[in-house]
């Protein structure tokens, strides 16, 4: 009997809330209309007022209708709106608070921080979010007053599927957008300069710098720079990473694995600028010790070493997975024939894991081709085709160069017209190249599985 009474009371409150929210909705609609025709001044632009105001008033009106019949979805709408409002105030207050604390030349002293924290953050924020917070509390207390029937649940269940579908197709949507936009931006360069000129021209000279000379936008120097640095990284990095993977998967005792594996994972997480910084500060002076005229320390050798360290975790992880995927029966059969451990690894395990290892190397190449900032810092960024510094062909390693990725990052902020368009064409090239590389790698990895 008592329970029925409380529910009855709760339902009455819900009806009251429904009336209140219908009033709020109408008021908001009036404010929106007045604000849109600028009869009253609001701190937003008219179009924003129209969109947000009408959206909110419609939602509140909807929930008022729902609340009148104790519908559960009306409660959800009010809940989400209240949380949105709280979030909005929270974010704006945080920005203002951060400006007070960090905005000056130095961080304000701690007593002042504390004072502003209490005066500004706590007091002002709680003053702003009081109403939505109380609403949430009331609705939490009224939970039993609402009804949720099967039809409503089924409707929600069916409609959420399409929301999820929308989310799932977002990745596809982004891929399509990336391709469409970079490609449409690059059409200008294709029309004005021509594909052949860009892909085979050996001089990169954006006209805007030279003056009234026509722009020459040949990408061969950058393509060669990318290829050379990637080859260097593969030559240095692949033996190291495959060796590490064999050690971790086959040879090392458990303790070594437990130490090495997190270290390799850490290597993958370190920001690429730190590798670049290391190349600049440590490797460049070391390389400068080679007494060759024109050797600045920056160039292909430096870039290859830095890149080799950066692709190491990628190759190591995937190779290790491939080695671990080789069935233990293969190894046991090999041992049973009298083979030593190394013979087993060399003649049984490595061939069995071959496609996985190749996939790992291909993915490593992809990572090396896509790397940008670290390379800008160590490769020297000259626009010429890298050539040996003297008769000795090995001095090619000391020559400066520029990669495709680096070219985009260095020039995009001031490029315009055909020049900018050519940079977007570089982006399209990289996108397609890495698409092919990753598809091949995934194909190889899938082939591995029985």
């Amino acid at each position, binding site marked *: 009997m008592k329970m029925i009474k409380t529910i009855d009371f709760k339902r009455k409150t819900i009806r009251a809330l429904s009336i209140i929210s219908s009033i709020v909705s109408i008021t908001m609609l009036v404010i929106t209309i007045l604000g849109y025709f600028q009869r009253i001044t609001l701190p937003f632009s008219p179009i924003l007022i129209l969109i947000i105001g009408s959206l909110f008033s419609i939602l509140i009106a909807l929930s008022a209708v729902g609340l009148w019949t104790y519908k559960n979805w009306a409660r959800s709408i009010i809940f989400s709106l209240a949380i949105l409002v709280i979030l909005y105030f929270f974010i704006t207050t945080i920005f203002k608070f951060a400006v007070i604390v960090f905005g000056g030349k130095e961080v304000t002293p701690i007593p002042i921080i504390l004072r502003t924290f209490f005066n500004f953050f706590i007091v002002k924020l709680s003053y702003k979010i009081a109403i939505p917070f109380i609403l949430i509390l009331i609705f939490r207390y009224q939970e039993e007053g609402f009804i949720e029937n099967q039809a409503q649940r089924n409707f929600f269940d069916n409609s959420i599927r399409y929301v999820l579908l929308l989310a*799932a197709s977002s990745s596809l949507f982004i891929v399509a957008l990336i391709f469409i936009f*970079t490609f449409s931006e690059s059409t200008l360069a294709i029309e004005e300069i021509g594909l052949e000129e860009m892909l085979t021209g050996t001089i990169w000279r954006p006209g805007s710098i030279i003056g009234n000379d026509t722009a020459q936008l040949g990408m061969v120097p950058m393509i060669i720079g990318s290829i050379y640095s990637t080859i260097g990284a593969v030559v240095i990095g692949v033996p190291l990473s495959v060796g590490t993977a064999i050690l971790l998967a086959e040879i090392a005792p458990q303790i070594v694995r437990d130490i090495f594996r997190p270290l390799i994972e850490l290597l993958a997480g370190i920001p690429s600028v730190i590798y670049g910084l290391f190349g*600049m500060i440590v490797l460049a002076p070391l390389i400068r010790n080679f007494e060759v005229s024109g050797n600045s320390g920056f160039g292909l050798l430096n870039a290859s070493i830095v890149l080799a360290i950066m692709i*190491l975790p990628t190759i190591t992880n995937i190779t290790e997975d491939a080695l671990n995927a080789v069935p233990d029966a293969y190894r046991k059969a090999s041992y049973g024939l009298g083979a030593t451990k190394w013979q087993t690894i060399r003649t049984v395990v490595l061939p069995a894991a071959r496609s996985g290892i190749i996939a790992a190397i291909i993915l490593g190449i992809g990572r090396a081709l896509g790397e940008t900032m670290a390379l800008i*810092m160590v490769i020297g960024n000259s626009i010429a085709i890298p050539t040996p510094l003297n008769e000795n062909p090995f001095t090619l390693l000391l020559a400066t160069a520029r990669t495709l*990725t680096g070219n985009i*990052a260095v020039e995009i902020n001031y490029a315009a017209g055909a020049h900018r368009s050519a940079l977007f064409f570089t982006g399209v090239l990289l996108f397609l190249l890495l698409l092919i590389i990753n598809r091949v790698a995934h194909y190889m990895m899938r082939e591995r599985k029985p």
Partner: protein
Amino acid sequence: MATARKLLKYKPSKFDYKKNLRARNISQKIAFGIIWLCAAIAVAALIAIVGYVLINGLPAVNLEFITTRPAGGVSGEGGMSTTIVTTIYLVIITTVIAAPLGVLAAVYIVEYAEETETGGSFIFAIVKYARIGVEILAGVPSIVFGLFGFIVFVSRLKLNFSLLSAGLSGACLVLPVIIRTTEEAVMAVPRSYREGSLALGTTKWQTISGVVLPAATPGIVTGIVLSIGRVIAETAIFWVTLGGSYRLPRDIMSSGRTMALHVYSLASETRAFDKALGTSAILIIIIVALNLAINLSSRQFAKKFSGK
């Protein structure tokens, strides 16, 4: 025929087993030595980089360095206070955009994929291509994301160089990370959980939101922490979308500079290497802490479903 002839010619009596074994053992020792050397070089490189940055960077780090604002320009004076705040802003914006989207997408790919197989071919095609889309997105180099963000958010949508455009581009970058880890986490939830919930008469979405997602939370958190690490470490994409102002962003539409960008700017524009190293040291400490958090949460997740 040829192999048979070879077998006939095979004379085991002339075979010196001991010598052969010794040679094989020696070759194994040499090979293992080379492999150990490779791994040692790899780990030594890591220790050299981390050690160098920490040893040379930490002396520059003190309270004053952390609490003063970068002076800007080419002098390289000042600290890094605003870059820390900007990094936190960017991490929050990126996560708020990418995490719900990624989790919902992964839930669809895992939970609804099988039922659409029998359903309409169009929806099935979308799920199939959504998976490929995630794979492609994971392989796109970050500078291409940067170009995309630059053309769409910065110039076409006129958001300019701002936290919002950088956050949107960053969300595209970390979306595949979150989708993949969430997919794995949701797949790891035992079937019995779902069946138990469905037997109580819940709808599919109620099962997912009430049982599957809470059970998969540690895995999802791992994915989000991973993506936070990506955002903190990423430079190229923010170089072309965030601008690089050393001032504090006053709202979501203003330009800023993350810690990684600060390292790049200091190293390439000012040559204030000590400050760059100091910022790098703090970055490395953050990354190590994030890695520890990931290890902890994934271990917890593995413990939860093992032996059950």
